[in-house]
């Protein structure tokens, strides 16, 4: 199993897209890495940034994956995406016994750092709000 990150991506997508409140608020616009050009805002984007394995054997390992998970919208005010970022954080809680996603078990998802960024695209302001989340998972049969 070396495509385990795709399981994590799947879990995140299911959590966000499957949540009626969030999905309705962003019109179903939930994307891994980036949105197609011209996609209207607001939207949710999440990306894997890096990680490492602990207990490095083939059958036993705990993986630490760091994700940047955020809401984005046109404009210079964070007000519109504040409830979206709050909802993202609510949806990223993991029960004590973890979450099974195909052949991996997500053991925890903890925000390590908040994220807030104001940017410009062709002279127009864009805002981002969310966080850096550390997701720990391991093979499900452990």
């Amino acid at each position, binding site marked *: 199993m070396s495509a385990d990150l795709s399981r994590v991506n799947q879990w995140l997508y299911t959590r966000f897209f499957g949540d009626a409140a969030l999905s309705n608020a962003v019109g179903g616009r939930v994307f891994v890495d980036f949105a197609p050009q011209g996609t209207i805002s607001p939207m949710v984007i999440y990306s894997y940034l890096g*990680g490492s394995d602990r207990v490095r054997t083939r059958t036993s390992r705990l993986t630490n994956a760091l994700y940047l998970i955020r809401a984005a919208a046109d404009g210079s005010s964070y007000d519109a995406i504040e409830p979206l970022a709050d909802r993202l954080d609510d949806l990223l809680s993991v029960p004590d016994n973890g979450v099974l996603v195909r052949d991996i078990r997500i053991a925890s998802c903890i925000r390590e750092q908040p994220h807030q960024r104001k940017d410009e695209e062709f002279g127009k302001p*864009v805002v981002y709000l969310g966080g850096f989340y550390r997701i720990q998972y391991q093979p499900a049969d452990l």
Partner: protein
Amino acid sequence: MNIITVRVDTANIGKLIAQLSAKSQEAVNETAATIQSRASQMAPKDTTSLAESIYVNNGEQSDYAARTGRARNVNRDVIILEEIRPEFSITLFGSSDQGYSAVVGVAAAHGVYQEYGTRFMGPQPFLTPSVEPMRDVFVNTMSHIAD
């Protein structure tokens, strides 16, 4: 009744403390150099100005001037950010006594867009994947610093 005599020889404590200090500094510098090297290798390359602009400042030495010079040589349009020095960083231990620390910085302004992406451009992270594996390595090195 048996008598046990314990004798503590403190003659080498000063030497040991000095050695710990030097080894700690060496571990910080080596970790920073490894992160810099990995990040430079992983940085997306067009003009290579991003890879060239990754510098290390350990408070005593910095290759910021050399690296940014090389970045400008390969891309005269690159926007260079100000140098970040270790004393600018905030740690859990406060800012006055940080022990040994080093900053691995990215001087090219477009680095943040490569690292995190934008909503319409996927990220090509180079710094985070370089730092992440070094966390455990650094902790392990420091755990055996007195060996």
